[in-house]
Each structure stands twice: as structure tokens, then as C-alpha cells.
């Protein structure tokens, strides 16, 4: 079966792919074995882009170095081991407009929630943000290497305030020019202020995350070029449940962010150019377009299905405990411990009394993202609580661990 790459619209970098259903074609195999490979996605689907990225990590030749660039439609990407209830305001994701809490300016419709396979914190992706990934052999890998490459790319576009900071993120220094520095130093700009002198916090424009396997090292990062959503991102990434949850796991470190103000195309060309410079391949690097036809590769298809599944998104959450004790409005403390996204234990205690009502054992294993109605679930969980109280507690839990939002139909 011969399928033309439907997404190929540009003459430059275009390649007609011979794809047989399920089997890797010879040309795809050849490409994955090339010492230097460069891909760019034409799809805005975050599930597809992350699946392709994972596929490249697993299937590209161990000695090869791979660049992959992609842009996602508005979506929130949480780290491998993060807690979506803690990191994200899930209620805002509900595509049903009337039940959506008000944000100023108005929120977006249909923001996807995706758990990626690399570590790190939560980020907001949209069309003004370009994601870059470099996969290389572990012995050539350092955490800064490709962040420095991207800074060189930015500087070649005139963004002289950009540098790599100690956390391997890319930041823009603020304030006025202080000193001359070595222009080749990607960790210093003429605007960098040393600690001790009055510090103006730099603006973060790119965050890094990594996935390391025995044979490959993957480093990917965002790059905020021209996001129209900077003002509402904080609303999405602020969860009302945060003060009430104790959890283990990596928390996001929040930083003030800003747009670089650069076009996607300008940036991607600069990154490719720096990549080509670093990894000069004898044949010249062909930049290959990736589209939805890649779903025809079995591994991509399965990875895609996994990323979209609610099990992956919610059940990979490390253990956490949520409790009403910090909220003064109630007369009783309810505490639930959630393990692997399902309730594992809990108790209820009337304030002022020492008596504990334990969680009903039939409720153990209740998946939080499957809960349809909190008042009803709570009445099953704890004996001897009247419906009015279940209603009040239920409303609170609904705000903290929204049931409707997690039931949303995932946009195809």
C-alpha cells in the first residue's frame, strides 16, 4: 500500500513515504539508522507528538542523534510522576462552557491534559510555544548541552538576553546592561546580575525535562515564543486542592514566564541550523515531516492509545492524601489516601471527638477519576453521615477533585 504523506505541503524537506500497514518500511528503517536525523511535526495533536517522540527514543539507532520539533494545540502537559489534581485546575478543563469557572480573560475551550513520559514539572503548551527534543547517546549527553544549542539559536535570532540557568532552563535576563561577557558563554549575558547585588528575576522562556534509558538520553524543552495565553496560564496551573493535599513526588517550581517574541519559523530554522552545525552529517541533514500517517506504525499507535488513556493519565499518580482539616468551614475532618489514582484508605472524624469512622472497605479501590458524584460516593464511603453533610462535603471534594472534568470526552 502506498500512501503519500498527506501533511506534506512544503516543497522543501518534503518526502514521499512508502508505508505498509504495520510493518516498518525500508526507508523508515534506513532513516532510523542514520547517524543524524531531524524531524518536524505538522500535527498539533499533543498525544501524537509525544508518541512519536517516544517512538524515536526507542527505535532510533543507539549511536544516532535525533532532533524533533513540534507544536501542540492548547494543552497541559504534566510530568511522568506528577499529580494532576495538585498541579492543574482540572475544573477549567471541562469543555462544557456553563459549568466552567470564570477566568479573566475568558478561558480556552478544550484544553487537553497529557502526562508525558519524561520527568519534570507541568507546562502549558499552545501554538505560540515550540517544543524541541534532542535524543543522543548517553556518553555524549550532558543536561546543558542542548539547552546551550537552543540559546545559541536564539542569540542568532537576536535574542541576546537569553541564557541557560543553573536549573538547565532558558531564561531572559531583565534590567540594564551590566558588564561585557564572553559572547560564547551561554550561561551569561551582559545583563546577568550576580547574586548579592539587587536581583531582578529573569523570565523563564524554556523548561527542560529528561528521560534517560540505558542506551539513549532524551532532552526536551519548551520555548515560549508568542503565546497569547500567558495571562490565563497561571489560572490553569493553580489547583484549588493544593493546600489540602500532601503528596510525594516532584512538584513544579513556578517561575515568572514571558514571551521571547519571535516567529515559530524563525526559531525552528535557527535551531535546525545550530543542530546541523553541531552534528554535521556527511550527507547533509534532511528535515523530515511527521504527520498523522505515523500512527500507522504499530509502536506509535500503541503509545498514542496509552497516552490518551485515562488510566495512564490518572493512575500513574504517586500516593497522596487529601484532607478537609485545613478548611475551617466543616464540622468534620475527612481524610482520604489515594494510591495509584484509587482510594486506598481514609477516615472521617467529627471535630471535637476522637472517634474515627473508617472508610468502608467496599470503597477501597475506587478510582478517583471515575467518581460520578461526590456526595453519593461519600455516603458509600462513610457510614452514619447524613445527606446534608454528604452534600456539603461532596461539594468541597467536587471542587478539589473535580469529577466532571475528569470524565470529559477526550477530543479526537
Amino acid at each position: 500500500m502506498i500512501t503519500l504523506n498527506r501533511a506534506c505541503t512544503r516543497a522543501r524537506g518534503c518526502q514521499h513515504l512508502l508505508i505498509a500497514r504495520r510493518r516498518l518500511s525500508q526507508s523508515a528503517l534506513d532513516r532510523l539508522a542514520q547517524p543524524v536525523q531531524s524531524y518536524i511535526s505538522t500535527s498539533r495533536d499533543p498525544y501524537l507528538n509525544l508518541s512519536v517522540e517516544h517512538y524515536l527514543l526507542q527505535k532510533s539507532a543507539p549511536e544516532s542523534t535525533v532532533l524533533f520539533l513540534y507544536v501542540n494545540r492548547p494543552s497541559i502537559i504534566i510530568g511522568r510522576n506528577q499529580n494532576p489534581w495538585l498541579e492543574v485546575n482540572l475544573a477549567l478543563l471541562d469543555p462544557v462552557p456553563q459549568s466552567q469557572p470564570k477566568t479573566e480573560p475568558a478561558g480556552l475551550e478544550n484544553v487537553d491534559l497529557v502526562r508525558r513520559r519524561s520527568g519534570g514539572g507541568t507546562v502549558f503548551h499552545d501554538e505560540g510555544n515550540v517544543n524541541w527534543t534532542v535524543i543522543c547517546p548517553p556518553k555524549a549527553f550532558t543536561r546543558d548541552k542542548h539547552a546551550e544549542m537552543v540559546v545559541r539559536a536564539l542569540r542568532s535570532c537576536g535574542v541576546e538576553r537569553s541564557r541557560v540557568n543553573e536549573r538547565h532552563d532558558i531564561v531572559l535576563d531583565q534590567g540594564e546592561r551590566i558588564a561585557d561577557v564572553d559572547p560564547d558563554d551561554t550561561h551569561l549575558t551582559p545583563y546577568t546580575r550576580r547574586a548579592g547585588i539587587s536581583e531582578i528575576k529573569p523570565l523563564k522562556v524554556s523548561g527542560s525535562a529528561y528521560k534517560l534509558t540505558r542506551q539513549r538520553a532524551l532532552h526536551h524543552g519548551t520555548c515560549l515564543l508568542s503565546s497569547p495565553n500567558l495571562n490565563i496560564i497561571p489560572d490553569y496551573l493553580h489547583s484549588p486542592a493544593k493546600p489540602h493535599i500532601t503528596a510525594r513526588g516532584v512538584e513544579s517550581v513556578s517561575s515568572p514566564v514571558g514571551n521571547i517574541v519571535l516567529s515559530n519559523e524563525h526559531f525552528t530554522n535557527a535551531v535546525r541550523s545550530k543542530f546541523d552545525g553541531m552534528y554535521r552529517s556527511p550527507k547533509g541533514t534532511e528535515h523530515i515531516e511527521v504527520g498523522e500517517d505515523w500512527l500507522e506504525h504499530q509502536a506509535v499507535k500503541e503509545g498514542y492509545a496509552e497516552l490518551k488513556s485515562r488510566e495512564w493519565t490518572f493512575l500513574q499518580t504517586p500516593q497522596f492524601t487529601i484532607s478537609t482539616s485545613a478548611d475551617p468551614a466543616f464540622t468534620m475532618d475527612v481524610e482520604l489516601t489515594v494510591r495509584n489514582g484509587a482510594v486506598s484508605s481514609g477516615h472521617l472524624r467529627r471535630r471535637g471527638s476522637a472517634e474515627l469512622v473508617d472508610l468502608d472497605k467496599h470503597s477501597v479501590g475506587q478510582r478517583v477519576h471515575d467518581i460520578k458524584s461526590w456526595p453519593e460516593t461519600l455516603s458509600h464511603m462513610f457510614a452514619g453521615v447524613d445527606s446534608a453533610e454528604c452534600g456539603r462535603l461532596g461539594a468541597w471534594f467536587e471542587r478539589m477533585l473535580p469529577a466532571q472534568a475528569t470524565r470529559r470526552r477526550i477530543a479526537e
Partner: protein
Amino acid sequence: MGTIVPRSLYLTASTRLQTQLLQSIPYRSLHTTHHLNIVKPFLLADIGEGITECQLIQWFVQPGARVEQFDKLCEVQSDKASVEITSPFDGVIKKLHYDPDDMAITGKPLVDIDIQSEITEEDEAKLAGGGDEEGAGSAVRGVEESIGEREIRVEGAAGVDVAEPAVKNPGSQPQPERRRSSGKQDHSSLATPAVRHLTKEMKVAITDVRGTGKDGRVLKEDVHRHVAQSTQQQPTVHTPMQKAREVNRKVPLTPVQTQMLKMMTRSLNIPHFLYTCATDVSSLTALRKTLNISASSPDQRLTQLPFILKAVSLAFQHHPLLNSSLDSTDPAKPQLMYKSAHNFGVAIDTPSGLLVPVIRNVQDLSIGDIAAQLRQLSEKARDNKLAPSDFGGASFTISNIGNIGGGVVSPVISEPQVAILGIGRSKIVPAFNEQGDLIKVEELVFSWSADHRIVDGAECARCAERVKKLLEEPGKMMVEMR
């Protein structure tokens, strides 16, 4: 990875386990001598970045599972990285030290493996968590997988890593062999445990044996043939000497040591001369005491070092030669660069060894600023969080071993700098004041080393004396401050 993949891997592992269990019976009966079984804890290797703990996300094995070298053991996560950790050798999993979601500590046991064969000292080092480069915790270096077309084509079960050599059709091979390219770097990988045991018994080095198996693997016949061909015939009796561990231990150099080796070898070219000068720091100590009374917290207290750094910087305004750098890349035309920025490298003793992070532009910093930066750097160094941006670009170095001890020291200049200052520990010594009375004085010895190709003794002495005067009467520093 998600819930789907580990299950299929586990199935494959358990199928393999069954196959191996079935085949392990005839396998074991070949051994007539006592087989050495050791249960060793596999430590969580340093993942880099000074990370001391990371969270365990999921296990890919359970106690009792038989693993081969490079099988995935678990996935851990540290701040930004999720890392797959693979087994350093063959064995049986005995104990998992953490549950999912627990924080695993670097350098502490992660999992206990019953190693089913004798291991070399190289492997011992791996058990000690020898991997300090970025990458998964399996510290086997120099063993490359040769990926040919056929390996990429193997898609196998759902989403299985091509990079995962362990997944293969169970029962297809009679012995637990591993796929390896025929590099001779990692000797232990060229043969099965049975063959390795045989080479030890025969007192043959495996590198001497030419392997005729797949990928150059050494088989038992090869060992026997080698022994027959060589003139040495060793008895198969185990002597106690054979089992004894050598007293000397060969270890590779740590990254810090490697760097030191490189730098100091270069420094051999520099003709050093030493100038020492004992400085009376009693007034300085008194001043510090007064200032520290009003310090807001214990770690805001000022030590001697910030004052010394500032004094040296003030002195360098008059003696810029000592802050210069020698460019001798062209031996015919050496050039001297006078540096305007006083970037002082401060040698710090850290858990990984001697590191020299840099405080930049000391000429523009107040003593308080310098103290703050020193504090920050030593915290980072303690936590192993020093970044590459903290190093490099030093025009002069100060090495303070005062917290350890020392009187006179002869420090080594690191090129392209032309001088270095070493400071020991101050001590109370007897001295005479102007009236001829015996008084107690706190003395600190400053040891200056300078490059005699550039700096002559007099210039160095003048600079040293200026620093001494500034510190003996700290008021003089105020006069010079900009």
C-alpha cells in the same frame, strides 16, 4: 512507562524464567565444584547533578525474578529526569529496598541481587555505584550494541524497546547468552558464567582466548583448546590463592582527579617561586567579632576569607601583573594579557574533591557581597550543585586550607594564571610590641606562589606586603575602597 508495557515485559521475563528454570537443572549439574553464590546490594548510582535522592516510580522485576545484564530493573525520577535503571549483571533478584513512590537515596542499596557467578573487580566497582556519567544506572561502559537492520525490525510485543536486549523468544537459545558486539573491552561479557568459571579454574585470562561463538563469544571448547595449545597446563584443583582477593585495588580516576591530573601536568611547565609572609590578623579578628555581634543569623557571620579576597583585589589595583594571564600558545611570541576583572577562583574542599569555583569581579563587590557569594558557593558545593557556569575564567586563585590546618604551603599555579595564594590556619604566637613587652598575636601565614617567567620576586613581595598591611590595619582598606 504505563500499565500496559511492564505487564508484557513481566510475562516475557516469567516465561523466560520458566524456560531457564527447566534448563537450569542440566546446566547446574555440569558444575562439579562449589558454585560461588553472593548476594550483593546494587547501590543507586549517582544520576549526576548532585542529586541525593529520587523517587521510585515503578519496578520491572520482583524478588525471585531472574535477570540478565541490562534488563530493566526500575524507573526512578529526580527533579527533571526520569531514568531507567538496568541490572549490572546476571543474577536473581533477592530483595527490593523500596516501594513505588518511596524516595530512593543515592549511594544506598536499591535492590539485592544474587550474583550467580564470580565477578571481577571491575564489576565490584560497579556495585559501588561506579556510574558517574549521565545515563542509566548500569555502569557498564564501552560495551556497544551493534544495531543492524534486523534489530530495528524486531518490534516484538507491545511497545517493547529495541534498546532492550533481554526480550527475545524464550526457549530459542539453550543457554542464557547475551547479545554483544565483539568488543574486548568488557571481558566478562564475552562468555557465559559457566565459561568464565572455567577460565578461572583453568587459570586462563579470557582475553587470551579466541572466541569462536556468536559475536566472538568464548565457548568452553575455546578455553579447552587454548589450554591444550599453550605450554602451561594448570591443575583444576582450587588453591586458596586463587580465591583470595588482591590487596591492591585498581580504580579509575574520578572526574575531579582526572581534571587535576590534566591541569597539574600542565602546571609542571611553570617555574614556581614561593614567598611567604606572616600577617598579624589580630585587628581583623577583633573587627570581625564586633561586626558579627550584630549579625542577623549564624550564617551571616563574616569569616576571614571575604576580607582577604577584598584586600588582594585592592592590592591588585597597584600590582596588576599578578592578575594577568599568560598566553604561550605561540612559544615564539608569548603574550601577556592584563585582566581588568578580578575573577578569583576559591579552592573548596568538597565531597568530590578539590573544586575551584569562581567569584567574578571582586573589584566591584563589597565584602558583604563576597561573603554572600562564598556562602552560596560552598552550599552548592556541599550539595554537589555547582554548575559549569560557576567555574572557569579565573584570573587568580586563592586556596584556603585554614579549616584543615597548615602553616606554610606551596600552592601550584593553574595556567594561564601567573600567581596563586595559599592560606593556612591562623594561630596565636608570642610577639613583641613597640615597648618590648611580650604579647599574644594571631598570626596567619600567607604563601604566595608566582610564575618566575613573568613575575619577579620583588614585585610579588611588594604585593604581598601591601595585602599584609591592609589586613593588619583594616581601616586602610576603607581608604582604598571604591
